[in-house]
């Protein structure tokens, strides 16, 4: 892991092709880098790299990124056992939530140099009487990390949520999580915004964006504060962001062109997207698919309508013709697709003229209609 991060670090700094990177990592002392920018001693070694502790170091490439399912689930903090029971920090849960913020892991693990994740105490001195006043003390750092968000949640200090008095039974973690997970507002399947425009109603089909259009929560919620979702105070006000910001990343919107505005703004509630308007009515099979099963990327552009453009392995024998509503009789069972669907153009009317004179579809059916 250490190697990986160091490697990534160099990758971003030097910006050379991948093969070259590996070589530079091995001999990065020869790279055009200023040693003192990272190392504090003259002769750093692998075992004691004497890396600079920040905050001067602010390269974005150093921001920690680690998938939430790879991190430690629970962290036991038992440094104050003489006063309180140990607090159990739900690390993975917080790591998952951090994906909604701009900082990600670095919202807590700030200014971590390349390599292992450093414990807070490496930078934040525990004593109140400390040499370097510019770096906040350990106690302040810990409380700042937790309360920065937790006070937003309840608008109280809630000391006992973390510090359970010695000898007392700590709150069961599940109940605590349940309580904490109360959301500021419910996740609505549909949100109707009333604006002050001429066409005041904007309907946002929240569930369709996730279930059908294939968007993940973090695709839109990527710059959120904790209290956007968690705020249990009575006068909570979910702060709406600049309204066009999120939509515009997919929906073209030009304030000069009214047509683009009307896509979202209307005088009444809009139904969710119906594929019919594109001129391609979805059948019962296609209807169930997520948009991204056929369309790729975030731009849903026109696709090739030929069946085999997607169904590449369709040929005689591997396709159950019954789904089209026609079951072949024994005379037609063995036919190749192209015998009737000339040039395998499945969207066009099948032709009987290759074998039969004066017989046309759909006056005569090569078998039985089942629907």
């Amino acid at each position, binding site marked *: 892991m250490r190697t990986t991060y160091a490697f990534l670090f160099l990758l971003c700094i030097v910006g050379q092709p991948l093969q070259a990177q590996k070589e530079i990592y091995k001999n990065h002392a020869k790279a055009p880098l200023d040693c003192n920018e990272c190392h504090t001693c003259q002769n750093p070694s692998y075992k004691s790299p004497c890396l600079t502790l920040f905050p001067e170091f602010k390269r974005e490439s150093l921001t920690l990124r680690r998938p939430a399912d790879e991190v430690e689930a629970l962290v036991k903090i038992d440094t104050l056992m003489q006063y309180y029971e140990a607090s159990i920090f739900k690390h993975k849960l917080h790591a998952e939530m951090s994906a909604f913020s701009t900082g990600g892991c670095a919202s807590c693990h700030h200014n971590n140099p390349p390599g292992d994740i450093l414990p807070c105490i490496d930078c934040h001195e525990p004593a*109140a*009487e400390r040499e370097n*006043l*510019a770096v*906040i*003390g350990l*106690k*302040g*750092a810990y*409380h*700042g990390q937790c*309360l920065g968000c937790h*006070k*937003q949640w309840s*608008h*109280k*200090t809630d*000391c006992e949520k973390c510090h359970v008095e010695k000898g007392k039974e700590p709150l069961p973690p599940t109940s605590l999580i349940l309580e904490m997970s109360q959301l500021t507002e419910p996740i609505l399947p549909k949100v109707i915004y009333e604006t002050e425009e001429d066409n005041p109603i904007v309907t946002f089909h929240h569930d369709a964006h996730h279930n059908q259009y294939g968007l993940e929560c973090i695709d839109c919620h990527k710059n959120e504060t904790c*209290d956007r979702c968690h*705020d249990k105070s009575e*006068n*909570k*006000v979910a*702060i709406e962001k600049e309204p066009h910001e999120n939509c515009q990343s997919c929906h073209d919107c030009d304030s000069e062109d009214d047509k683009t505005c009307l896509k979202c703004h209307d005088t009444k509630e809009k139904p969710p997207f119906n594929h019919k308007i594109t001129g391609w009515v979805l059948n019962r099979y296609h209807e169930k698919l997520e948009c991204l099963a056929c369309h790729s990327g975030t731009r849903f552009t026109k696709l090739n309508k030929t069946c085999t453009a997607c169904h590449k392995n369709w040929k005689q024998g591997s396709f159950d013709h019954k789904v089209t509503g026609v079951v072949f009789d024994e005379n037609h069972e063995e036919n190749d697709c192209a015998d009737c669907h000339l040039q395998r153009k499945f969207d066009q009317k099948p032709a009987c003229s290759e074998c039969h004179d004066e017989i046309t579809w759909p006056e005569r059916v090569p078998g039985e209609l089942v629907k």
Partner: protein
Amino acid sequence: MNQSRRNFFKTAGVIGASIAGAKPTMAAAESKNILSDDRMGVLVDTTRCIGCRRCEFACREAHDIDAGQMLDYDDRSVFDTLRRPEVDSLTVVNEFKNGEPAAEAINVKVQCMHCDHPACASACIVGAITKQQNGAVIWDTDKCIGCRYCMVACPFQIPAFEYQKAIQPRLMKCDFCFSRTSQGGIPACVEICPMEVLTYGKRYELVKLARKRIEQNPEKYVNHIYGETEVGGTSWLYLAGKDFKDLALPAHGSAPAPGASESLQHGIFKYFIPPISLFAILGGIMWLSKNKEETGE
């Protein structure tokens, strides 16, 4: 009689004023030499304060005032009213709304600012209040006669008085935990503060630290260190994200609060020389005029 009564007062007034006017510079110069470069201070970063009021608890404990249970201090209903330091609470935390209903409220700790040029010490007619080398403004209970001039003089309305005590009522205010800080310790409130709202250190270092914080987070702080220049500078310094006036920290100029009144007040009685000389001159005038009268007759 050559010298009329009117003339006599005129002469006396001019002489008296000239003596009083000559003294002020001396008085002001002498009260300054207590300001050591190494004097300590506390930086209060109100943007970090969560209003847990543990400082109030620790302060009472450190000053032998009944502090009750620590958990009692979680009661946030006290924030409904604006509080001032009292005889049994030498520091208090107040809460201020932050405009928007959703924005986090702002908590501000209040205590003696430990002025570099303390008006209380200046007003004290028995010299009980003194500014110490380490920055603390403390008082000698044995010297204090309970005149409460300090309470009137204080630009921050800090000193409190034990009115409810009939016998030996005391003046009470934050003493910068002098028994601790004079021995190299840190104030009790600073020690307990979980959020490190309070940073104890040399005052000049704290000013630098405060500047750095403003520089690094210009959107978080208003560009002003309250106490850096207010009333000539104070040992306690404040940072905030909102105008200090809205946080009940009064807008003061940079002139030391004692100012001209101190020079006059001290000058008039300095070593008792001015009054004695005044009476000597008056006596002289009287003697001269009497002589004249006698010779004239």
